[in-house]
């Protein structure tokens, strides 16, 4: 129940605050998801959906920063290794 996966917003269906819905694609499969908690999501954005309700919009910039951070860690490791 808790393993929410990110999907891409394809198109908004309903903008009503209580009944907000959009079509969201998960690995090629499209589903209608409820969007009341991510009213600011745009088409093309990734959202995390839990029990049919989108609970967050994936922040692309933060995703990139985290990955860059981790990759740097790898580089530091390699540069600190003694030459073979």
């Amino acid at each position: 129940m808790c393993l929410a996966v990110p999907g891409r917003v394809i198109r908004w269906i309903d903008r009503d605050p209580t009944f907000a819905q959009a079509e969201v694609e998960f690995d090629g499969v499209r589903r209608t998801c409820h969007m009341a908690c991510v009213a600011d999501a745009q088409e093309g954005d990734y959202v995390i959906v839990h029990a049919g309700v989108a609970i967050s919009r994936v922040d692309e910039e933060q995703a990139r920063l985290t990955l860059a951070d981790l990759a740097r860690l790898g580089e530091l490791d390699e540069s600190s290794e003694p030459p073979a």
Partner: protein
Amino acid sequence: MKHLDEFRDPKLARRLVDEIRRTVSQPRVLMEVCGGQTHSLLRHGIATELNEVVELIHGPGCPVCVTPAEAIDFAQQLALEPNVVLASFGDMLRVPGTSRSLLDVRSRGGHVKIVYSPLDAVDLARHHPDQHVVVFAVGFETTAPTTALAVLQAATLGLKNFSLLVAHVRVLPAMEALMQSPGCRVEGFLAAGHVCTVTGFDEYESFVQRHKTPVAVTGFEPLDLLNGIRECVNQLEANQCEVTNRYARSVRQEGNASAQEIVSQVYEIADTPWRGLGVILKGGYRLHGEFEAFDAALRFETILRRVDDRSNMLTVDEQGSQTGCPAGVCPSDDCRSGEVLRGLIKPVECAAFGTRCTPDSPLGAPMVSAEGACAAYFKYQRTI
């Protein structure tokens, strides 16, 4: 797949494992709170990789496992009522109540409908005005907005044939209870990423300071988990403790304001029983008075009272004969899920594990649920 594959990069994962191993000066004990994280840690072999340096204690974060047996009994009785349909997440169906599961009840003619989302149940009620639809509202702060939204939709539509059996729980009070329980060995927490997505992490500050325990808000992919573990380990080695966000692509400090608003419109915080842990102060939600028309516990009060009486009788019987599960976790004497849920033992330490207790024939909730620790060990770690 975007936002999954990059966070599963095996080369980076290996480097993180190496770095954690290098950093640790003594074995550390961390708890991952969420059952989804437990599964991911085992599935990707992270728990095994870090075996001697970081012990991962699995927390009570499986909503299905901590739903009290009495709530399941009540759900079963409702499903047996004429013209009532019980709408439930699929995970709940095989969890034993005091004496049987919803699946047993369904096979005897009970009306149990599996829904993917509580909002599907609103549609069900709308299209079947002759039936009363009760949603079995279980889950953490992540799920509470989905059931709260269902209530708001039902209220807007003026539905009279829709209600909730509320058994939602809140994570932080359970962490608090665990820290105060005797024998607790936890030195740091991986906080549940999707719970924090909704709640934010401001409220963890005082917890961290009071217990001098680092908390890293953590996601579910291998790099997310390793990143959270690395953060906790670094802090422990530096003798520091703070809340850090290692799942920033989904979690903002203040959380999701719209989701919080939806929850606070519909629910108020209440002391709540957890299976295996007892009543936890502020450990869950109940419906606000203005939504009492949607409260199955009030609407079907006589049925609830009948169930309560029966459960109490069973408890007395069990105590009288000195058998049964003291934590009220499951009907089997052999099942040690109370200890599993509190992180006191690993599933493999239970004598029934993998022999008398398997996912096909489970003795306790943690072996049933897709997020239960016993099921995770059975699936990924049977050789150990």
